[in-house]
Structure formats: structure tokens, C-alpha cells
């Protein structure tokens, strides 16, 4: 049950009152418990901004420097808090700029509500100034969207937006509101949405399927768990831990599932997928029962599908029926919320351990350590590695930081080497792979969880896609820590060019500006590190700072991320070099 705040209660228990559509929008947000929203004003949304001005003591509007970043900030807010993030923009370009963030939220199941202004209803379809069919454009990348043309529709539609965004498998919702509906007055009253008749957010868990899963797990000799973000979204971290420990099953995670179980847990055997750990990838093709929980067998996880775990019985715990058998044929599908399903499962699981099987993961880890990890974390060559920077962040933050990574080599390194102690600590663009995600997402994350250390780890390419958000950080004094791992390349693409395109480095080399000067231009404390001996003190200084801080680390130019499953190869053909 959701606990309502005093402000929420005030706006939920209000008698009917005649107000404008735009004021209603703000009151709806307050009734939904929104304390901060990210956005950018413009013509078609001005009435709402006028109300935000009046309500600024109750709701904090953060002016991002680009609407895309409003959406990403809302994502960061949602990912660290589990609450719905809110972004707001004007019609036309304001709305289209949100689309990347919306698509990112859709593929990574992140609950956000985007509100866009629209030209007045009598101008719809006339190619009016800043008119764009944002409902049409956003349809394939939203969980739900709707256009409002009458003020009286506002409360019901916004209530529904929050309900749909948050319930079941979460996702983005866009509500487009015409300017005349914002001006129109009506008798406002707000009621939260508790259901939509055509929508089943959480399918019923069939107890027979749970029993079938338990039997398979109990009889398995070489079981392997792979969990995804579903664990985090359903708050099933404790249940996952209980299952893993009771059944003694080695457990691996997808990039979106990272941090649900501490990195140091003895049964946490690492990340699966293209740049995941050696052992869980190789042994996916050796396990006898594969237990997938809240993950969706993405192609970056499975590699070549028809050589993926063909020897294993597959159990799939999943909230979204459309994911069952989508990529991998399951033997037992357990539909439902992961937490509820695991709570039913655990009592039926026999206490067990699989020491020989676990030893095989340890043996392969040793191989990976010698070939890859040692060189990443304890390099002997002159150039700094991305891995040692992450290691230093682990040390200085005691593994308690939330790491917000962008997309590319640094992202893989951050996910591989971050020492996660707390859940919801890995905020990254997993499905869409949106460069430019990290800086704005870190803003949202830090504002939603001010008590947590939030470290954005970004490459020099992605950083420059949303670098203008330094302005948002400066203006709002958001104490995020920004680490740019600068290799003067679009590193991941360069790595592929090196391995698969005979080193033809087409448009991947970057001539970069003075990043420190840029940060300082925004009055953000900044430092650049080029030598190993300066790294630890610089990271410490950054973490010790109470203010926003920018740290550029110049790393080896042509470092590669390994292990790697080449596209089209099987998970067990993962390369170590």
C-alpha cells in the first residue's frame, strides 16, 4: 500500500472546485505525490508553467537545458526511487525532443509520465506553429498515450497515466494537452485510478506452474539463475537472496538487474551477455536448469539464439505474458509479479548446495581474472584503464554509490567492476543504449535520493551529447559527481572497427575541448587526471566534495573491453582477447 503524504491527502480529499485545466494539472501532480518535475517551457505549455510558478512552494520544477534531458532526468529519478518520474515540455520540438527519453523508458520499463502542451484544439491538424502529432509519434514507444482536448478530462486521464506508468511492467506514458483545455475552467476533483478494465497489470500466478518450477529446481544438478530488472521493479531483492541461498544456486544478472544482490555475495557469479563475465556465459550452455527471473532474453544476453542453453530446461518467471517464448522457448513459465512468485516458490525449495558446480564458475573466474580482470584493475602498463577508475570509485565510496553510466566501453566496465552493495545502484541505458543518458539521469537520481552518493560515469562521446546539463546542475546545485573517462575515441565503435572492420577508424576519433574549462565555465569544481599516481587522491577529493564535481580521467586511447561475445556467436564462444 502506498503511504500518502500530507500534500497528497490535501489534494485527494478536496471538494469540487472551479479551476482552470492548467491548475488542475498541477494539483493532479500534487495528488500523485510528485515533488519534482523536469521540463522546459514554451508557447503551448505556458498556462501550466504559470501555475507551476504559483505552486513553487509545493512542487519543484527543474529547468533542464534540453527536453531530452528532462525525460532522462525523470528516468533517473524513477530508477533510483521506484517512483514515477515526470517530464513536461511544450508542443512541436519540445515534444519531439522527449522522444528519445520516452523510447529509453519503454525498452527499460521505467515509469515516467510526460506531459506535453499542444496547440489549441481548433488548430489541430492545421499545421499550426509548433504543432506536431506527438501522440502519433510516441505511440510505438509508450506504454500508453492520450490527447486531452477538454479540461474536464484532465483529472481522470492524469490519474490513469500514473496508474498505467507504475503498475505491472512499468513504462512511459505521454499525455498531450491542448492549450485551450489548459485555459478552460471546470469543476475539479481528483480521484486516484485503481484499475482500467481492459488492462491486467499483473497476471495471476498459477500455483501449478510454481510447483513445476520447484520440482525442476529441486531435481537440478547444475542450476543457474539469471535475474533481470524485474527483481528490482517488484522489490524482490530479499526473496531472490533467500532463493539463491536456500537452493545454493549460482546467480548471474543482466545489466538491468545489477545491484539487486550485492556484488560480493558468494553466489553472485557476475553479469551475463556480450561483455559479461566469462563463467556465467560459458556455463549457460552447460547448466541443466536455467531459472530466468524478471529478464527478457535480450539479444545482447543470449547471443546466437539457437545455440543458447539448448541443453537446459528453461524456467521463466515473468510479469509480461508477451515475453514468454518470445526469444527462448520455456519449459515452465511462471507468470506474475516476481516477488509474489518467489514467495510462493521458496517454501517448496529444498535446502541444497552445488559445490562442484559452483567450483566450475570459480575456475572460469580464475581464467577471466588472469586474462582480463587483472589487467583492467591492476594494470602494469603506463596508460590508465577504465577499470582502475571504477575500482577507485568503489574504494572511495565503499561501494555505496549509485553509478549512473552512459553507453559504450565505460558502461560495460562500470557494470563489470562496480562493487554494488545496495540495490537500485546501477542506473544505465540498457535496452536502448542512449548515449547522453547519464548526465541528466544522474541529476534525477541525485534529486530523488539526496542521501546517496551519485556518480555519473561517462565517456567523452556521450558526455558531449548532453553536456549542456552542466547548466542544470549548476543552477540547481545538484551535487552529482561526474567522471568522464576520456579516451578521445568513440571507444566501443572503435573497438568493433578494430576487431571487425580491419582498424578502419571511420569517424570515431574525437578532438575534444578543454573539459575542465567547460565545467569551470559553469562554476563547477573540476580536475583532470592523466597519471596513475594522481588518481586515488583526485577521486577522494571528488567524493569528499559536497558540491557538484567534475573529474576527467584520461585513459588509454585504444583499450578494449573483454570478454566479448561477437555478434551472432554463441554465449559459450565468448572471447577473452
Amino acid at each position, binding site marked *: 500500500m502506498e503511504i500518502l503524504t500530507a500534500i497528497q491527502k490535501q489534494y485527494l480529499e478536496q471538494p469540487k472546485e472551479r479551476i482552470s485545466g492548467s491548475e488542475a494539472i498541477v494539483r493532479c501532480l500534487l495528488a500523485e505525490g510528485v515533488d519534482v518535475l523536469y521540463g522546459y517551457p514554451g508557447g503551448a505549455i505556458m498556462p501550466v508553467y504559470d501555475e507551476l510558478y504559483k505552486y513553487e512552494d509545493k512542487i519543484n520544477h527543474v529547468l533542464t537545458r534540453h527536453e531530452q534531458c528532462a525525460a532522462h532526468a525523470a528516468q533517473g529519478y524513477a530508477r533510483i526511487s521506484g517512483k514515477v518520474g515526470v517530464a513536461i515540455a511544450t508542443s512541436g520540438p519540445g515534444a519531439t525532443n522527449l522522444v528519445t527519453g520516452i523510447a529509453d523508458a519503454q525498452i527499460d520499463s521505467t515509469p515516467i509520465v510526460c506531459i506535453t502542451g499542444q496547440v489549441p484544439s481548433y488548430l489541430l491538424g492545421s499545421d499550426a506553429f509548433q504543432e506536431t502529432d506527438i*501522440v*502519433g509519434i510516441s*505511440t*510505438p514507444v509508450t*506504454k*500508453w*498515450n*492520450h*490527447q486531452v482536448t477538454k479540461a474536464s478530462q484532465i483529472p481522470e486521464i492524469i490519474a490513469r497515466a500514473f496508474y*498505467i506508468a507504475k503498475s505491472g511492467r512499468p513504462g512511459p506514458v505521454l499525455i498531450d494537452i491542448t492549450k485551450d483545455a489548459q485555459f478552460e475552467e471546470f469543476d475539479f476533483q481528483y480521484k486516484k485510478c485503481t*484499475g*482500467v*478494465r*481492459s*488492462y491486467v497489470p499483473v497476471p495471476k500466478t498459477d500455483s501449478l506452474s510454481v510447483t513445476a518450477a520447484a520440482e525442476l529446481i529441486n531435481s537440478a544438478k547444475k542450476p543457474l539463475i539469471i535475474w533481470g530488472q524485474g527483481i528490482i521493479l517488484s522489490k524482490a531483492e530479499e526473496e531472490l537472496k533467500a532463493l539463491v541461498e536456500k537452493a545454493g544456486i549460482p546467480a548471474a544478472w543482466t545489466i538491468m538487474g545489477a545491484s539487486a544482490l550485492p556484488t560480493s555475495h558468494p553466489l553472485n557469479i557476475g553479469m551475463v551477455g556480450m561483455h559479461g563475465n566469462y563463467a556465467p556465459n560459458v556455463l549457460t550452455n552447460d547448466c541443466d536448469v536455467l531459472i530466468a527471473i524478471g529478464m527478457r532474453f535480450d539479444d545482447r544476453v543470449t547471443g546466437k539464439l539457437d545455440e543458447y542453453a539448448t541443453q537446459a530446461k528453461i524456467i521463466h518467471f515473468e510479469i*509480461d*505474458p*508477451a*515475453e*514468454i*517464448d*518470445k526469444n527462448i522457448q520455456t519449459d515452465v513459465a511462471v507468470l506474475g509479479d516476481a516477488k509474489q512468485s518467489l514467495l510462493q516458490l521458496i517454501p517448496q525449495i529444498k535446502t541444497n548446495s552445488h559445490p562442484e558446480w559452483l567450483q566450475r564458475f570459480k575456475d572460469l573466474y580464475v581464467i577471466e581474472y588472469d586474462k582480463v580482470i587483472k589487467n583492467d584493475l591492476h594494470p602494469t602498463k603506463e596508460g590508465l584503464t577504465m577499470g582502475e577508475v571504477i575500482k577507485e570509485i568503489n574504494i572511495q565510496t565503499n561501494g555505496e554509490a549509485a553509478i549512473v553510466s552512459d553507453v559504450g566501453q565505460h558502461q560495460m566496465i562500470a557494470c563489470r567492476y562496480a562493487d554494488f552493495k545496495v540495490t537500485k545502484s546501477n542506473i544505465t541505458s540498457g535496452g536502448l543504449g542512449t548515449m547522453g543518458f547519464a548526465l541528466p539521469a544522474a541529476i534525477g537520481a541525485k534529486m530523488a535520493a539526496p542521501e546517496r552518493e551519485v556518480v555519473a560515469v561517462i565517456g567523452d562521446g556521450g558526455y558531449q551529447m548532453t553536456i549542456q546539463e552542466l547548466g542544470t546542475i549548476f543552477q540547481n546545485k545538484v551535487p552529482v559527481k561526474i567522471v568522464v573517462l576520456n579516451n578521445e575515441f568513440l571507444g566501443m565503435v572503435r573497438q568493433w572497427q578494430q576487431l571487425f572492420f580491419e582498424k578502419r577508424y571511420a569517424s570515431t576519433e574525437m578532438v575534444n575541448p578543454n573539459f575542465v574549462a567547460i565545467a569551470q565555465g559553469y562554476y563547477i569544481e573540476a580536475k583532470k587526471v592523466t597519471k596513475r599516481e594522481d588518481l586515488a587522491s583526485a577521486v577522494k577529493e571528488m567524493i569528499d566534495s559536497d558540491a557538484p564535481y567534475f573529474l576527467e580521467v584520461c585513459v588509454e586511447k585504444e583499450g578494449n573491453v573483454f570478454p566479448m561475445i561477437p555478434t551472432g556467436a554463441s554465449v559459450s564462444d565468448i572471447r577473452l582477447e
Partner: protein
Amino acid sequence: MTTEKQLYTVSVYTENNIGLLNRISAIFQRRQINIESLNISVSEIVGVSRFTILINMSEEQIKKIIGQIEKQVEVIKAYYHTDDDTIYQESCLFKIKSDLLFEERQIQNIVKDSNAHIVTVNKEFFVLEKSGRRAELETLHKALSVFGIMQFVRSARIAVTKDELKISEMLNAFKN
């Protein structure tokens, strides 16, 4: 499960909302699947729309598509059926020069034999309507085309299933 392509009739019960057509057609479009025919109408339940979509694909594919359709918030339920599971029809209209009715005696026989019926006749043209299976419609089209057809149009397939679909129960369950 068969990977061979065949014709499936997809029936989708939905809320009657603007934009849903876009949402459903996008599911086919992103997979590069051509919709053979599409009909949207009211259903047996007040306020509930029914999409009837004809698709040529494998069962493996159609199952995934059904999952993607049902996942849409405003979709109540989606089904796929083979021709054997349904009673289905299409309709078509022929606009033909009225003179031909008198000049070409054969046409009158064709009309009679085909069980088509004349919707309207005036001095310039008459309109013939025929409902039935695709093959029957095609046979009639072939027979008439030798005389010249001014206009021809064929509707999408509509179909009811032999089995009960229990949509009302589903909606009632939500109320309780």
C-alpha cells in the same frame, strides 16, 4: 508449432479509443508484416470495438503478435483463428453499365447463378452485391470482367468464431 505460413484471422476486442488503430497496426509494421485485410466495427458488447485482421504468417509468429497486441492497455483480448475455427465472409460491390444488362443476356444468368443481388439500378449503371468466400467473389469477378466493370470494391473479411469468446465475462470480472 508450425513455422509454415497460413492465413489467420485475428480478432481483437478493444475499448473504442482514438489512436488504437495506430497502436495495433504499428505492431505489424515494425515486423514488416503486411495486413491482408482489416475491419473495425462495433461488437456484441456496447462500447467495445472488434478488429478483424487477416494475416498470412506462421503460428509461431502469430502467437508473438497476439502477445504484443494484448499487451496494449486498451486491448481487452486478442485471438487468432484458422479458417476452420471461424465462419467468415467478405462482401463486394460491382458497378456495371446498365446497357449491358440488356445487351448481354449472359449477365442476367451470372447474377442469378451467383446468388448476387442487385442493390440499385438506374439508367446508367446498376450495382451488384455479393457476399461469401473469397473464391466465390473471385469467380463472379472473373465472369463479369469480360463485360467490363466500371468499379469494383471488396470489403475486409469479417468472421465470427465457432467457439464462445466470453468477453462479457471478462469485463464483468473486472467490475467485481
